[in-house]
């Protein structure tokens, strides 16, 4: 009976499998294959050479871009998680169901606008003679260099990831059994202890998954490091652009892309293990 049921379910699995095969595995395979091709007179030529891998992985600029990208993405994950958490707590615990739904709907609104436009608009705030520095000057403080820096990139990443991370955290926090929080209060645990010993452990999966989303979005983002970070030092996405500009070296760009994908796969697996792994 059960084998009959699973046989009947097979056709239902077919569409997602076909989808994954067509739009993920085949392009990925193609990306992997062209990383072994050559470029002759600006044209891709099928080949089976390791020179692209050797060239990219032996360059200090590649590893420095890798380290820089990793650090920025980690920073984005931490900053976004910290910025989202108070808002998510508030939405999950202090407002009515109706208000929460309304707020969650508003969290989606930023996605109605182009990310590029939102990043460009940040320039008006972060420029040396922009709005933030004008406000600082009003209270007698010196202006800060914010645009064309890692800080600028981080602002862009947070702009990109904050709504999504807040959404994930809110949904995770809202599912926490309130009786456990009340029990902690009844047992005389203060708000801080309740937060760190009850709420955060219970919300761990949503906190980790939210941070993972922020990491993934920041790791591959090209817009923020280019338009708010000044493109220097380059991130891996900047490096891909530079590589394709350098005589159409798509195979080398494919090497960078594969390393990025592998990094994200490993990071995701580690994050999932951290989020859902059993406590000892």
């Amino acid at each position: 009976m059960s084998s009959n049921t699973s046989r009947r379910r097979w056709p239902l699995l077919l569409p997602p499998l076909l989808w994954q095969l067509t739009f993920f595995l085949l392009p990925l395979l193609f990306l992997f294959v062209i990383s072994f091709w050559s470029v002759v007179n600006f044209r891709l030529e099928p080949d089976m050479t390791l020179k692209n891998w050797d060239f990219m992985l032996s360059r200090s600029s590649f590893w420095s871009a890798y380290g820089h990208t990793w650090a920025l993405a980690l920073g984005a994950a931490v900053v976004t998680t910290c910025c989202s958490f108070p808002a998510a707590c508030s939405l999950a615990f202090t407002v009515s169901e109706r208000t929460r739904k309304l707020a969650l709907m508003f969290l989606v609104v930023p996605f109605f606008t182009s990310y590029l436009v939102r990043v460009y608009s940040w320039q008006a705030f972060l420029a040396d003679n922009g709005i933030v520095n004008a406000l600082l000057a009003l209270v007698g403080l010196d202006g800060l260099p914010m645009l064309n820096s890692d800080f600028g990139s981080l602002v862009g990443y947070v702009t990109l990831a904050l709504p999504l991370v807040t959404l994930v955290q809110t949904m995770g926090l809202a599912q926490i059994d309130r009786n456990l929080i009340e029990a902690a209060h009844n047992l005389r645990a203060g708000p801080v202890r309740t937060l760190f010993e009850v709420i955060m452990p219970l919300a761990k999966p949503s906190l980790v998954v939210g941070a993972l989303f922020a990491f993934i979005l920041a790791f591959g983002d090209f817009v923020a490091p280019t338009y708010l970070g000044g493109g220097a030092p380059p991130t891996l996405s900047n490096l891909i652009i530079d590589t394709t500009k350098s005589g159409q070296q798509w195979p080398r760009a494919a090497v960078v892309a594969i390393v990025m994908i592998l990094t994200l796969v490993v990071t995701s697996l580690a994050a999932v293990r951290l989020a859902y792994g059993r406590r000892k």
Partner: protein
Amino acid sequence: MKEEDKSLLSPFRRRFLQGSSALAVGSALPLSLVSASSSAQTAGQPRTLTMLAWYGHAEPDIVAEFEAKYNVKVKPKYYTGGDNMLALISQSPAGTYDLILSDAEYVPQLRKAGYLERLEAKDYAFDDYFPEFQKFPGHWDGNDLYAVMVRFGFLGVAYNTDAVPESKARSFKVYWDPAYKGKVGHFDWYLPNMGEISLYAGHKAPYRLEGDQFAKLKGVMKSLRPQVAGFFDYGGTFSGLKNGQLQLVCGIGDWITGTLARSGAKVSSVVPDEGGLQWTESLSIGKGTRNRDLAKAFIQYITSAQGQVKSAKMAAYPALIPNRKGWELLAQSDPAEARRQGMVLQGHSVMDDIRSGKIVFRQLPVQQSIEDWNDFWSEYKEKA
């Protein structure tokens, strides 16, 4: 049902005839449609002329008159940078682009790769061109012509006129001035930037460098890196200059600052004393085009005196023009713009800068590979 059975049982010849007539009806339908479409075309349906170009070259301010005259719609595919253009061509079947607008240094590569049709020199108004541009390097292979120069411009020091006095901007040395630390930007393309700094390093032929000269260029560039705010594409350069975040930009010229100045931004460009670079845009006919005559007519249109004036004042970005009669017409129709761009037939003009040797053509590296230069560019971007 019985009728069907009968037909199945009918003799082979009858079935063959039935099948043939069905086939004839089926094939006649599309043929009549093609014929109808062809009549519609002659009756007023516009043809399509495809163009691969930098942004702006197929906008109404440039092509509207041509479209109306020839009942044609110019369909552009815009690119950003020569490498992007090469990628688009190499990934498209022959005949995809009727017209190809490229930077002059890429014409020999396009020709060698077999992407261009040979042109007839007598079809174009070279006699109206300044002599320097009649046989432009790279456009000819012996006596065979492959591209016609349309417009050009200079690359030097772009600066914020409120923050930087012109006297300082007249030398590339200004990039190293401590007063502008963190305010110097690069247009993110190795070729114009490294060419400019190569001129500053004293190389009269900035792209033809021996090993020690290339090493010197790298050293000079590295010394500039602490001054640099960042590396920007067209949009980033535009906004950086406009909002005052960048006070000096290396690797650009009037093609950006001229556009910004039109909207009131306090920016300008100058060719410094060490010299400047010339960028050049040229039109070719794509290999395998099915609209050769129309493509030829477009090149004739845009290189005529009237077309050249449109090109000089192009809304997307202004440029200098190689047609002397175009200069004359511009002086009559818009003397202020002619003076602003230095295209004046009396007094000092941009042609004097070219003739004095102050301006050199931007070109691809001669002794080193493109990759050698671009790899250094990536390395340069990495370290402050």
